């Protein structure tokens, strides 16, 4: 096979993985740690996209520097509001969170439709991101690495690293893990579990908002864009092992490269079915994902 095509597909794998990871990281928090099946996660991505559009309207070409904080804060606030009004009442009923957040996703979609119109809004990558790194000469002559793709790869790595640090090295993360292991004990040790729940959910939403900025550079921004990502995002979390941030990273890479391979060998359309079936087969082999979180004390029923 043509070495340029082959390395191009490898880069595709990495690129697809970075998008999967970006869209899944917020879920790794809300689903992985809190067991909230947030079907409105896709809509947080969408809102991130619209906030990017607003930032571009306000700022012009340098909009990205405004878009990230705006998208993060905007979606995080919305997430906090949701947690406070709905999610809070549903802890311990994961399947019910699914239904309620599905309802919320419908409302958010319709709201976006009425505010911004059902036609998508244009967001174009700034000039400094619109070029590409091109290999000249040698066997890989013509191999192209678009700046936007590189940017999204770096972005997802940064978000992954940031989340890992936050959960595993910061005092906040210690509290999160403590609550995750034993809510009552953590509460009795003075952790404000209610506030922490809200923060974790808001953080997950905020990360989705940031992901939305990245997506806006490569995908449409319209009321229904979230639906295109939500199923795959859940699969990343499940394959990675629920509750494991690094697992999500590994799963995104696995799914990304599998997709790129399948797309390279067959067609894009068939590749999606193949990927979904492979995930189901994979879960046969490892039902708890790549990095299962093991616990013994809580197994008893």
């Amino acid at each position, binding site marked *: 096979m043509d070495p340029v*095509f082959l390395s191009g597909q490898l880069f595709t794998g990495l*690129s697809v993985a970075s998008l999967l990871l970006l869209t899944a990281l917020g879920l790794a928090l809300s689903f992985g740690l809190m067991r909230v099946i947030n079907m409105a996660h896709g809509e947080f991505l969408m809102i991130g996209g619209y906030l990017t559009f607003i930032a571009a309207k306000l700022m012009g070409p340098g909009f990205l520097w405004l878009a990230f904080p705006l998208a993060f804060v905007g979606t995080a606030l919305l997430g906090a509001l949701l947690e406070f009004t709905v999610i809070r009442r549903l802890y311990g009923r994961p399947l019910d969170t699914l239904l309620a957040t599905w309802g919320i996703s419908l409302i958010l979609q319709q709201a976006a439709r009425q505010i911004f119109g059902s036609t*998508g809004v244009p967001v174009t990558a700034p000039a400094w991101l*619109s070029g*590409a790194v091109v290999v000249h000469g040698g066997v890989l002559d013509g191999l192209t690495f678009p700046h*936007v793709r590189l940017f999204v790869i770096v972005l997802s790595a940064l978000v992954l690293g940031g989340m890992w640090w936050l959960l595993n090295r910061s005092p906040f993360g210690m509290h999160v893990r403590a609550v995750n292991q034993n809510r009552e004990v953590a509460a009795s040790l003075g952790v404000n579990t209610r506030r922490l729940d809200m923060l974790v959910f808001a953080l997950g939403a905020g990360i989705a908002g940031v992901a939305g900025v990245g997506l806006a550079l*490569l995908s*449409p921004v319209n009321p229904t*864009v979230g639906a295109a990502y939500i199923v795959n995002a859940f699969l990343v979390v499940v394959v990675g092992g629920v509750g494991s941030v690094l697992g999500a990273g590994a799963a995104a890479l696995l799914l990304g490269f599998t*997709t790129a391979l399948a797309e390279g060998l067959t067609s894009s359309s068939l590749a999606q079915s193949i990927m979904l079936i492979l995930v189901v087969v994979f879960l046969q082999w490892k039902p708890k994902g790549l990095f299962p979180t093991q616990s013994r004390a809580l197994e008893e029923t």
Partner: protein
Amino acid sequence: MKKDIHARKRHLTLLLTLGVLGGAALAQDTIKVGILHSLTGTMSISEITVANAAQLAVDEINAGSGVMGKKIMVVKEDGASDWPTFATKAEKLLTQDKVAAVFGGWTSASRKSMLPVFEKNGGLLFYPVQFEGNECSPNIVYTGAQPNQQALPALDWAMGKGYKTIFLLGSDYVYPRTANLILKKHITDMKGTLAGEEYVPLGGTEFSSVINKIKAAKPDVIINTLNGDSNVSFFKQYQAAGYSAKTLPVISFSIAEQEAQSIGPALLTGQYATWNYFQSLPNAANKKFVAAYQKKYGKNTAITDPMAHAYMDVYLWKAAVEKAKSFDPMAVRKAIVGISMDSPLGKITVDANGSLTQAVYTGMSGAGGQFKVISQSKGVVAPQPYDKLAFPGKTCP
């Protein structure tokens, strides 16, 4: 007496159906028509404006003398981007509202699901969107382009420009698959080369592999039948990969002015589209249509080919009713053949097979999402529902 039955009915059914509304008595001086498009869901992006265009025509006719002395009353239904809903609502329009005609549908799937309903109930549907052909229902007036009125002229144009090596890219559904099947036959017939063919799932947003394949195939031109917002992703990623209209042009069949706006005109500059209508057409009927639409729905609203077809469809129906001197759908369908009028698309004539003889334009995308016509068919093109090369021997009954 009738009222009594209705009251009793309601009493009983309330329990089960949240109150089914009985058909209200028709006033003598109105005639009902249905507008059935997706007002919600993924297809609403395209269909709301098409419904608006039909409504505009109705409003204009009502502001004048109406149709055979009757005002048109519109029953608007939402297909909700969901094909069974289209069938259900079509059934409602025909059996409950008893509309004289329905203007609606966008996707082939929605049309296919409505078709049996119209045939069963003897209704008449005006379908305003370009499609893959291979269908010829006596209950449908197909005004959008047949493949020989969009895809094939585009191929001719590309070949004429010296673009002989062609890559076919589409969403994975019936129109792209069928259009490309036809195109492939003609590419071979015209001694061109098929560089590659690729389909992405409907709504797909990831084109990295596709672009990589295009790069390896080294085509002269891409013929693009992607649907809806997949175009946004494709052109964003296409540009990011370093392509532009100069390095590798794309001819699209599903990108009109409105889609161009949402993709972002900068990404499309210099790319091509083929339609029977562009907003920039200079004829008088079009100027009037554009002005009226923008007055009603906003100054900078983009006007597209399906909108122009939907607008014109209402006038076509009016002309046919007046010719038939009847609102009976089958009489109207019979009378509509041969009707000719000056429309925003230019001069059109209804063929015996229920499709239009109309002109074909190729436009180049410029600033503001508008297309500049750079080529047009010699005169009008008669519709061919069945391509002779791809489906020999098939004709309309």
